[in-house]
């Protein structure tokens, strides 16, 4: 059997003198701030990254969403029909879709959906939680709620359940058992797409969404 | 005995009787003090002795070896360094160095330079005894300074090695702040190199020149009449650039400055 690049590289690494280095102890888990403190911290951080945060409740979130949509007047809204969020939206639109954006369902593979995807004005997704101390949403896209929803449209509306806001990324990882169950893709999102590549001048929406709007549902 | 004193305190034992003080100490003169700033060396010694600590200057000392070491010539550096190991008696007395750069070389790099060599143990003992001058004055001797000079505005330049390797800037500035009629104005970009960098200034004069130009601009912006530093390499570079531009700013080693302020000369 011929020796491969892999074998040679690993052989060189194995033949090198080693220094023992134990795993550092995991930092002690600090006492997480109360939920309201976590919400406040997340809000502060997200707003500092130019995300728009609106706080609402389980009873009122749909009204808040509809108010937002009427206010902003986007003509199309991309949504994931197979999710609970999608079902709630379909239901609301069925009751009174007047003055609301036309719904566009992400219901087929990207290969046939690409053209349409690039023309929608806004998208709404759920979130798998958030991290308060750095300020970031946790997105865990899947077959029902695909990855590009939160990336391609110019506006991303994210619905976040307040009780899924963790104090730190470490907490979120531990509580969610991430290491045992990594999906195809996860992404932490802390604001709208941005760049400072021209004279360090901050500009938004260079590739991804120009706006990130977070509805925190308490 | 010649012992100019800033003030006499009767509540405490005479400084020269304090059993906690080292006796004696050795002094490493450094090349640049030897060649360009002899008064700084004399002042540094006098200020230690004024505290009642005898100073010995071993003959045969020369360079710490840093130029060769930093240029990638460890064998040459080792030969020069070994000369210092031999020149200083192998005892417990501190080796005081009026330069963060040379002190850093001897304290932090000698052990590695002699690792695996017959002189390794000696180099480690030697390194353990090295102390930068301002730290020695402030932390080991606990000097108290009485300012006898006229009001004066100065700024302070931190050498890279004194700041990052020896970590003695707090001691250096602490000594200046003891001088009641001296106003210390900090540089805006204190943490930045003046452009000397030892052999760097020789090898890359254009970059070095750009750095020192900015450093002098910074010094000038403080409105200080004098720039004080603890390393004569930086001083040589900075005062040269100041002179070149014809600016009315003086550069001085910390020891010379303190001697002048407290002795009245």
């Amino acid at each position, binding site marked *: 059997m011929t020796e491969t*690049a892999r074998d040679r*590289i*690993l052989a060189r*690494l194995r033949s*090198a003198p*080693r*220094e023992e*280095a134990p795993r550092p102890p995991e930092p002690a888990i600090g006492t997480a701030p109360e939920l309201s403190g976590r919400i406040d911290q997340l809000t502060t951080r997200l707003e500092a990254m130019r995300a728009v945060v609106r706080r609402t409740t389980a009873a009122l979130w749909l009204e808040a969403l509809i108010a937002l949509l009427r206010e902003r007047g986007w003509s199309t809204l991309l949504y994931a029909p197979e999710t609970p969020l999608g079902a709630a939206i379909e239901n609301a639109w069925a009751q009174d879709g007047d003055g609301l954006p036309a719904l566009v369902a992400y219901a087929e593979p*990207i290969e046939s*959906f690409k053209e349409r995807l690039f023309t929608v004005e806004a998208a709404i997704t759920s979130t798998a939680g958030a991290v308060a101390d*750095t300020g970031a949403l946790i997105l865990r896209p*899947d*077959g029902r709620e*695909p990855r*590009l929803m939160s*990336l391609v449209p110019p506006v991303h509306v994210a619905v976040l359940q307040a009780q899924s806001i963790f104090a730190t*990324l470490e907490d979120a*990882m*531990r509580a969610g058992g991430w*290491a045992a169950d*990594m*999906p*195809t*893709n996860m*992404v932490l999102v*802390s604001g709208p*797409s941005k*760049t*400072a*590549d*021209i*004279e*360090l001048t901050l500009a938004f929406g*260079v*590739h*991804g969404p120009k706006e990130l709007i977070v509805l925190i549902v308490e | 005995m010649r012992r100019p004193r800033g003030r006499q305190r009767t509540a405490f034992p005479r400084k020269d009787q304090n059993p906690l003080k080292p006796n004696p100490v050795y002094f490493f*003169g450094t090349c640049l*003090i*030897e*060649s360009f700033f*002899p008064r700084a060396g004399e002042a540094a*010694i006098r200020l230690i002795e004024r505290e009642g600590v005898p*100073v*010995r*200057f*071993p003959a045969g000392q020369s*360079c710490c070896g840093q130029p*060769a070491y930093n*240029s990638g*010539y460890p*064998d*040459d550096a080792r030969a020069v360094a070994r000369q210092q*190991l*031999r020149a200083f008696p192998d005892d417990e007395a501190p080796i005081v160095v009026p330069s963060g750069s040379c002190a850093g070389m001897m304290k932090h790099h000698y052990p590695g330079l002699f690792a695996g060599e017959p002189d390794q143990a000696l180099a480690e003992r030697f390194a353990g005894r090295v102390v930068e001058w301002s730290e020695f004055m402030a932390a080991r001797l606990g000097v108290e300074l009485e300012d006898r000079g006229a009001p004066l505005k100065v700024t302070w330049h931190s050498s890279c090695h004194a700041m*990052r390797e020896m970590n003695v800037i707090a001691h250096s500035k602490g000594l200046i702040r003891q001088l009641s009629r001296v106003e210390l104005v900090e540089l805006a970009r204190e*943490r930045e190199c003046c452009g000397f960098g030892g052999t760097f200034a*020789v*090898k*890359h004069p254009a970059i070095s020149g*750009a750095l020192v130009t900015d450093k002098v601009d910074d010094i000038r912006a403080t409105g200080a009449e004098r720039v004080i530093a603890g390393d004569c390499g930086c001083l040589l570079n900075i005062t040269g650039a100041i002179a070149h531009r014809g600016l009315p700013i003086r550069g001085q080693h910390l020891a010379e400055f303190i001697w002048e302020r407290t002795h009245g000369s």
Partner: protein
Amino acid sequence: MGPEEFDRNVELALADAQLRRNFAFAMGSFIARRQAVFSDAAQTERLRGQGQALKRRVLSRLPELLEELEANCTRNGIQVHWAETPAVANRLVLDIIERHAATRVVKGKSMVSEEMHLNAFLEKHGVEVVETDLGEFIIQLNGETPSHIIVPAIHKNKQQIARIFHEKVPGAPYTEEVEELNAIARATLRRKFAEAGVGISGVNFAVAETGTLCLVENEGNGRMCTTLPPVHIAVMGLEKVVEKLADLPPLLRLLTGSATGQFITTYVNLISSPRRAGEKDGPTEVHLVILDNGRSRIYADPELRQTLQCVRCGTCLNHCPVYTRIGGHAYGFVPGADRQDPQPPGFRTGPGRRPHHGLEPLRRLRGGLPRQDPHHRAAAAPAQRGGVTGGRERRARPRQPPQPNGAAGLGRVAVSQHPPAGQPPAELAAGPHRQRAAPGGAPGALDPLPKGAPFRPHPAAPPGEGDRNQR
């Protein structure tokens, strides 16, 4: 590049007032932002200590972790490839592209691909490569290389960028408005993302435990490159592996805090597999190319090994007074990224040839790179001269063996920066030594101080002279 060429570059760079202003402003901003994020000194020290320990741990188990990474990636459906040299890595990438008959590639910023000179290679083989990070896009349009690993076009101001866009992007109007320039890039690149057959990215951390590739970015181009095209190829240096998923939070904090002064980047991508059954988007193939290019040899050297702890945040550049004055291009390679500079700038030997002096001990996961300088320089210096020691102690450092691809090894690269062998370096000839060590350096065998030396403190010991207090 020889020393003369470097000196010419320096002269040009120093004469370019615009360039100096750009760099002074940009690097000053980075330093200030970083300080703001790491304002709690004690907490920062703890974080750095943790990061350092994690990276040390990785180095202590590097071959095992790479195998674990490979096994878990493979289990997840990511195809893993190994390359000893950039030439092999480039060929692997091209083979994948050709297998899919792709002619267009979109690429996220990847310093290891700069090290590989991947773009030039692919373009030579008829593949259109579009850099999609805005800074990389700008310099690619203008046929340049990055001048900074985090902000590649930092040497350009908006007027210069306006001209580049107007001249190189079909239909682009001349505008100096940063918002409008960004909009031009967005419109141009969106089409490229949608049409590309392959997306190429780098990797910031590869998690052995889960077979996960972690990429940080602010623009979203990384997400585009790794989600839209049907094939994703990630390239990484073999030092990017980390042990556990739980190691990411502190390392991410250190990286983003140091690189851009952010608590976290806009996007942190965690990619663990190609598109799975039932999923509607994402690439159907994900490849990981693991590049050695001398790293395994660096690993074998106990002194150099810690350079593999570098996370390439670029803070060393921001704080380097030399780099800040002359910019990245004067070096003739991309500091922190280039083929002959597979490690952070401190790796490239030769005083002044790379950012070093006055380096703040800020980033580096407390790796202590400056402490290694003498080591690098010794490896780079011409053969030790016999002058001082009469050759008795001659012990030239072992040279690094030539790299497998024939790229210059450590020694060869840097020797060209020094005077020809046999000629003493200037600093020693002109050095302030007032005397040379006698062979053997025995006590008492030393010359006395020269007469007339301006500073002649009393020698030690002799009665009446040795102790000033007795005067």
